[in-house]
């Protein structure tokens, strides 16, 4: 099911089957070139598959943007150990709801992507780690997997290629940190989601201590198109060094929030105005988060000339992230936004390392006091100091993810903190009520 109208400005590669009758069924999949990329890949050498993915400039869609082909090439193919394919379907980054629509509307595309990754690294089993809240997607994936087994697209000697592959779903049970790759692997092994020290990276020592390819749902979903149409064609859709499209979740104060597939390099202004239908109620843009709440915030001025790709965002000292775009209008209280973001990280910190466990808790408390009107001027500097002291000093990137948006909000919206200093609760709460709700 689709929860928002598509936009004519989309470039539909991963979403090409969305909206077709029974788009999730194997019949529809097969009638629209489904599994043809697998058949093609099965006749190729593994190095050729990896080369094609490298040529496509596909970068990881889970947040970090690591080149997928390169990651696959790190797997020691000839190791005597079994190798595994793991799909990160933990989707918990605030602002992000795209893996959900990919699995819901085209589950076989994900299965085919996983199979091709299996061919590339000589893996014969895979796990889809799905967040516990997405129970209905576990049912959808299980049904698609059962259908694929029935028709010989999974299991032993798949369609006479001699390639065996088994695929399983695995449910999480409520923990943002389990989206972090090494914590996910711990969780998959039936443990608390405490991250592992790296190196070794999962490509060498991953699931069950064996070499493992671990990618985001959207990353695997791009693979069938790459093999079918060629890596070069996929690369050409995007920008230099980053090929293809990005599933983009427009959230917050736009008229037409929704998930849209946009080519990489899509202009931010056009995305807000034309895809998103502009800011709700004719208001002005105040702040923009490109890819989930872990990314530094941009001001409206910084969005001038920006495009939705890794380099444009890096130039502005933020990140493309997961594709969870958060749009805030002129009436938004940035102290409240910073507080809500920090409450999330304090809640989700796994508690393993002190700078993150203590830092997020202290920041939550200070921001709460500030928003309630009990802040003092020194707190403004203190918030920035604590956050900066966390940066780069935590065991996994969750600490940075908590610190980065906070630092950017304090630096770019300092005046709003000053406005909260007069011993009264939030001065922005009295702003005209938001339209709609």
């Amino acid at each position, binding site marked *: 099911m689709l*929860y*928002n109208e598509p936009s004519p400005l989309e470039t539909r590669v991963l979403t090409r089957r969305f909206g077709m009758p029974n788009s999730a069924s194997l019949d529809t999949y097969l009638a629209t070139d489904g599994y043809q990329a697998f058949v093609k890949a099965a006749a190729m050498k593994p190095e050729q598959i990896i080369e094609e993915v490298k040529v496509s400039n596909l970068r990881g869609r889970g947040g970090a943007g690591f080149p997928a082909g390169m990651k696959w090439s790190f797997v020691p193919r000839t190791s005597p150990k*079994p190798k595994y394919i793991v799909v990160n379907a933990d*989707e*918990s*980054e*605030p*602002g*992000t*709801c795209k*893996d*959900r629509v990919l699995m819901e509307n085209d589950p076989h595309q994900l299965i085919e992507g996983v199979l091709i990754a299996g061919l590339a690294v000589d893996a014969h089993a895979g*796990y889809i780690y799905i*967040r*516990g*809240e*997405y*129970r*209905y997607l576990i049912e959808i994936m299980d049904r698609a997997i059962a259908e694929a087994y029935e028709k010989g697209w999974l299991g032993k000697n798949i369609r006479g290629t001699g390639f065996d592959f088994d695929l*399983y779903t*695995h*449910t*999480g*049970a*409520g*923990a*943002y940190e389990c989206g972090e790759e090494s914590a996910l692997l711990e*969780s*998959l*092994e*039936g*443990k*608390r*989601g405490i991250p592992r020290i790296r190196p070794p990276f999962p490509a060498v020592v991953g699931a*069950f201590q064996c070499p493992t390819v671990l990618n985001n749902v959207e990353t695997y979903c791009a693979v069938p198109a790459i093999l079918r149409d060629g890596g070069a064609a996929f690369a050409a859709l995007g920008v230099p060094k980053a090929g293809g499209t990005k599933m983009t*979740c*427009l*959230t*917050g*104060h736009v008229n037409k*929030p*929704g*998930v849209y597939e946009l080519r990489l390099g899509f202009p931010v202004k056009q995305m807000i105005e034309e895809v998103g239908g502009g800011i709700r109620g004719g208001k002005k843009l105040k702040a923009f988060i490109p890819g989930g*709440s872990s990314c530094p915030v941009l001001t409206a001025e910084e969005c001038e000339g920006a495009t939705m790709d890794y380099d444009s965002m890096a130039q502005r000292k933020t990140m493309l992230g997961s594709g*969870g775009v*958060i*749009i*805030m209008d002129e009436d*938004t209280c940035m102290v*409240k*936004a910073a507080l*809500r*973001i920090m409450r*999330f990280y304090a*809640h*989700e910190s*796994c508690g393993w390392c002190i700078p993150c466990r203590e830092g997020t808790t202290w920041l939550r408390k200070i921001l709460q006091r500030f928003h309630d009107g009990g802040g003092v001027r020194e707190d403004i500097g203190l918030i920035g100091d604590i956050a900066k002291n966390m940066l780069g000093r935590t065991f996994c990137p969750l600490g940075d993810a908590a610190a980065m948006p906070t630092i950017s909000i304090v630096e770019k919206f300092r005046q709003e903190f000053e406005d909260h200093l007069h011993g009264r609760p939030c001065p922005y709460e009295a702003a005209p009520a*938001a339209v*709609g*709700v």
Partner: protein
Amino acid sequence: MTFSPQLEARFDKLLKSYPPGRQRSAMIPMLLYGQDEVGCVSGELIDEVARRVGVTPLQVNEVLSYYSMLHRQPLGKYHVQICTNISCLLHDGDKLWERACRKLGIGHKQVTADGCISLEEVECIGACSWAPAVQVNYDFHHFVKPEELDRLLDSLREKP
């Protein structure tokens, strides 16, 4: 401990899903699916899952306390989860949360006296583009307006 045939089938499948000697991997899924049937992660469920995956009940306890969806105490028949994280907040998810608390007279992780409804303020549930979002057990509700929330809560009360 006995479970429904469907759950037994699910457990069997899970125990065969992981490499030999790695049955512990099935623990968290078994606890969550088990909780859905039993109503909570009861002591009995812990012992049973521990036995089947080959660890001690203490090891199960250690793991389950990490995961926010696993509950030692029963929740309401309908567990209403309201997201107030950033994308929902921008659509007044916090006000929706307060409204539900007021209407039901209960707070975070509390259950109504009749055991019908429990409330939880949750972190992002992956419905950010269709905010504000609410989940009742595993069902998503998108673009939830205040009056719709009222109607939703009333309808839960009337459901058999």
